[in-house]
């Protein structure tokens, strides 16, 4: 075939590469000497061969950009015949007798994969039995290891090859997560131990890419545990290690997003808000591209928390609402709960109680599903705030009284005090000074019986003094409540 008949372009090299060589070049499998000729030819600007490389790439991933961007003339522009149609190109590929081409042609129908599916399913059945046994053993071992002191745990693992399993790593990470907010040091130690085991996992047995994913997860857990313990520099090092492991992992976007999200959370704690937002926006984009709504929603939720920390309630409310649109409640009920509870809270703060009211039923049902008596009490408290903002004061008093009783039963002095102050605010609005006084007098001994720090007690005494003189106005009670909240949670 003459060069002109191949598209009207005159490359400087003598011949067009064979179609199969183009295919092998695209797959990076062409011997060096032939690859040189192909590159030389492509550099010369052969638009047809450039286009022909596209036939070797899955259509799902092929950019539909116009040809000729390289400055090479388009065949049609050269006025010498149209490029071969796609079926012609495929026919050319398939008629070549090349094994790669033959294989491609063979699997034109999905049926070509059937024997392979059968083989993989059989091997999986054996793995499944083995893995089920490992998982069962890991549950028992977790219970056995959890109460041990750190050093003893380490020795036990070092001397027990049967502990070197995937489920054991997961079990330790679960235990680490559970301890995160109650015993940061132990959470860190458990994550370290999980990493040690993950590093010794058999890559052949579990699939190397999956093992690297798990190692990345273990390092990111450690990073998070260190973050919670305010050891930010070490947390950063652990997250760096997680990212290095990800490079060798399966490329699972969920795993990558998980690490990026934890990195963003660390930045948030360091008040590096711009960097945190930047990372979370990347997570949102990546998650959207692969249609991972839960990951996208989780990132939006964290952006909302950052906005809250920055004192931007409107923006936070918008982000929470967007996160709720993305999170699948059946898959991530806890994230759904956090987002919807916080959104209702913000809507009340923003003076939009009607919108808050519309969301109460769904928040309640999530709280009920997820158990947690204390969380449910806190939801009822929120509900009372909505009622109060709507002017349904009787209903608000009823709910708040119930909430206060609940906190009393649990001996939560601060919460009792804060619920009492909220209750007192409503009574004050209704000029029920005797009720305000009664609440103040009842709450004082609860406060005194606990180890409440001096500043908080002094704040409460301001309210008590005013209540005794029937001078506890709504604004004074709100000011006292605000101070008390800040005394308990200085960062809020």
């Amino acid at each position, binding site marked *: 075939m003459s060069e002109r008949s191949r598209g009207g372009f005159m490359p400087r090299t003598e011949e067009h590469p064979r179609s199969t060589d183009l295919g092998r070049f695209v797959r990076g499998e062409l011997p060096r000497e032939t690859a040189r000729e192909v590159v030389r030819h492509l550099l010369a600007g052969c638009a047809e061969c450039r286009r022909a490389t596209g036939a070797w790439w899955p259509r799902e991933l092929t950019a539909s950009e116009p040809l000729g961007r*390289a400055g090479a003339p388009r065949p049609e522009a050269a006025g010498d015949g149209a490029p071969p149609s796609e079926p012609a190109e495929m026919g050319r590929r398939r008629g070549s007798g090349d094994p790669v081409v033959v294989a491609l042609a063979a699997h034109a129908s*999905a049926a070509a994969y059937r024997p*392979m599916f059968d083989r993989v399913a059989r091997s999986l059945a054996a793995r499944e039995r083995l893995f089920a046994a490992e998982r069962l053993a890991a549950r028992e071992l977790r219970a056995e290891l959890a109460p041990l002191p750190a050093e003893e745990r380490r020795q036990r693992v070092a001397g027990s090859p049967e502990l070197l399993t995937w489920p054991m790593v997961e079990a330790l990470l679960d235990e680490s997560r559970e301890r995160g907010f109650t015993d940061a040091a132990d959470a860190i130690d458990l994550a370290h131990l999980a990493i040690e085991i993950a590093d010794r996992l058999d890559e052949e047995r579990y699939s190397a890419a*999956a093992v690297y994913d798990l190692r990345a997860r273990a390092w990111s857990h450690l990073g998070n545990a260190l973050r919670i313990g305010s050891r930010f520099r070490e947390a950063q090092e652990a997250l760096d290690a997680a990212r290095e492991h990800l490079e060798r992992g399966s490329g699972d976007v969920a795993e990558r997003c998980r690490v990026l999200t934890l990195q963003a959370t660390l930045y948030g704690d360091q008040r590096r808000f711009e960097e945190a937002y930047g990372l979370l926006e990347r997570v949102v984009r990546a998650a959207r591209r692969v249609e991972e709504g839960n990951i996208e929603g989780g990132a939006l939720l964290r952006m909302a928390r950052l906005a809250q920390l920055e004192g931007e309630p409107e923006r936070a409310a918008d982000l929470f609402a967007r996160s709720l649109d993305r999170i699948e409640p059946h*898959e991530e009920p806890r994230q759904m709960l956090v987002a919807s509870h916080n959104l209702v809270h913000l809507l009340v703060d923003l003076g939009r109680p009607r919108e808050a009211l519309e969301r109460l039923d769904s928040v309640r049902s999530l709280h009920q599903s997820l158990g947690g008596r204390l969380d449910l009490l806190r939801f009822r408290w929120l509900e009372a705030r909505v009622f109060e903002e709507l002017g349904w004061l009787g209903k608000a008093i009823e709910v708040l009284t119930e909430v206060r009783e609940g906190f009393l039963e649990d001996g939560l002095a601060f919460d009792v005090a804060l619920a009492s102050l909220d209750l007192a605010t409503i009574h004050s609005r209704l000029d029920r000074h005797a009720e305000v006084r009664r609440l103040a007098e009842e709450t004082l001994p609860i406060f005194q019986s606990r180890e409440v720090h001096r500043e908080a007690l002094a704040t409460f005494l301001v309210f008590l003094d005013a209540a005794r003189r029937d001078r506890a106005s709504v604004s004074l009670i709100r000011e006292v409540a605000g101070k008390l909240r800040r005394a308990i949670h200085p960062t809020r």
Partner: protein
Amino acid sequence: MTVLERSTATDSIADVLVRARPALERVLASYDVLPEDAEDLLQDTYLTLLYKWEKVQCPEAWLIGTLRKKCIMHWRRVRKRMMDSMDEVLLEILSEPERPTQDRQDLKRDFERVLGNLPDRCQRLLRLRYILGYGPGEVAVEMGYQPSSIRKITSRCLANLTRELVAVGFLEVDDE
């Protein structure tokens, strides 16, 4: 059923695999994966599902999504091989002293013509690398980049160059 319960609580992994199989076959076919490559991808996907079984809420959707991602990763690896090959070949052919003068001039002119379509900084970087034969560290110093980022920047420029020569594999963007 509460929101905490899995929709597939009574399914076994084998049931899910049987149900998902036609869709998985379609994914492999749509990504033009050769059967010998497909077996590894499928095996990895199945194993990962097995390991994440307790955390995955909708295993069928998860399997299809994960296999699709693995197919994309597979083609990314293929693309990386192609780019590595392109890099090595360009380094070789553009710096061959024994090539006849006319041929070398033609080659450089062709290379410059392709470079002309790229952003200025990419042009400069690729000239330093392929025409003047600078190493990555030298390119970083010359262009004022951090040594830690030069690998990524060079890859990006080489990808731009490759896109000018080969009409494949650049539709989707990397995560990072």
